């Protein structure tokens, strides 16, 4: 156990060192060049995702409106989900309403895959289908997934769904099929072409601006600046998963 802790500590130290290194490298360059040098926004199609980037999301629960379902519909539309909310239907993002038992104050928030740095779903996967990409996006490789659903049990956020029925007419960019577990991908197909996830786009289109998406490792990104300015919370932060999705106002 002590060995494990030691390894984790060393990893963090190294990461911090690298971050500082990246920062210094950035200082040496002109601002415009810095953005391209450090961020992966300009990643060419043949270039692999890099761990210099960590995609994350900051959700401001004070801006998230009650009754608004824009992010959920946009997600369903983009990824070809039915939009049904039954026990056997896939939900990649859900709107939650939470109420403080003492004060009665209510908050709305979307709950989605938290894209943890240490994802329990990846730990428990027996085949390696559940995986974390270098840029921090947690995905399921459906070619390898055997549908055992261990990851669904391991996820503290109830973020994963299992496809129970055969599907047809999928979005060509989002292959989905019966017998596999699936979850929010941060709309990886959009992120890879420099777009934000569909939910974030929809939230902005609704005028709420409650969701901010960007590179947590890039000190110049809006999300990194916001995280530096405002207090943000990890849901179940006690688990030490270092989630990529953070909440503000809860």
């Amino acid at each position, binding site marked *: 156990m002590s060995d494990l802790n030691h390894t984790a500590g060393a990893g963090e130290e190294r990461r911090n060192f690298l971050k500082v290194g990246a920062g210094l490298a950035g200082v040496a360059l002109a601002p415009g060049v810095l953005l391209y040098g450090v961020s992966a926004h300009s990643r060419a199609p043949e270039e692999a995702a890099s761990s210099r980037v960590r995609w994350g999301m900051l959700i401001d629960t004070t801006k998230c409106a009650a009754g608004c379902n824009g992010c959920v519909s946009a997600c369903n539309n983009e990824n070809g989900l039915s939009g049904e909310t039954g026990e056997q239907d896939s939900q990649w993002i859900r709107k939650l309403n939470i109420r403080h038992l003492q004060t009665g104050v209510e908050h709305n928030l979307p709950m989605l895959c938290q894209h943890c740095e240490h994802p329990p779903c990846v730990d428990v996967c027996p085949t390696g289908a559940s995986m974390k990409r270098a840029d921090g996006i947690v995905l399921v490789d459906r070619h390898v997934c055997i549908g055992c659903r261990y990851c669904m049990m391991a996820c503290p956020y109830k973020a994963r769904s299992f496809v129970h029925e055969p599907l047809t007419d999928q979005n060509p960019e989002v292959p989905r099929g019966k017998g596999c577990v699936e979850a929010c991908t941060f709309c990886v197909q959009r992120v890879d072409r420099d*777009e934000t996830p569909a939910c974030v786009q929809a939230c902005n289109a609704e005028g709420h601006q409650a969701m901010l998406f960007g590179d947590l490792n890039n000190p110049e990104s809006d999300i990194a600046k916001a995280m530096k300015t405002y207090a943000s919370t990890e849901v179940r932060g006690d688990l030490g998963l270092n989630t990529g999705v953070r909440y503000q106002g809860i």
Partner: protein
Amino acid sequence: MASIRNMVRAFALTGALAALAMAPLGAVAGVDLPALEKGKGEKCVEDTPFMRRNHMELLKHHRNETMHKGIRTTRYSLKGCVECHASSKTGSVAASEQDFCAACHSYASVKLDCWDCHATKPAKPKAAAQATASQPALNLMPSVQTGGQAQ
């Protein structure tokens, strides 16, 4: 009783002769090779003989690169295959036995799992246009845009 038995025997003999007569006709016709519809593009990404033998290797390699590393080159992407080879009749590569993928695979009796998850039809341009209209592209990554302008 004997006459009935003779009649049955006669019928059986006639039937057998008829079957024998039919068999050579069938053998002459043989099983037709799959007739493949020509792709929409000028030519395939590799030579036809190479593609016949190696398309699965190209696809598998590309799938791993895309899935795990996020490499999204288009040369060997399955989406590219579908866009070019979708049938003019069904609009799909595997909807009917005559469609590009299904034709060879049913001939060779090799089951395809690709289409359990992947779309057999190219993206609908109409749906894409609708999505763009309902959700206009916004400046959602200011830092990216700034970078773009700076260059």
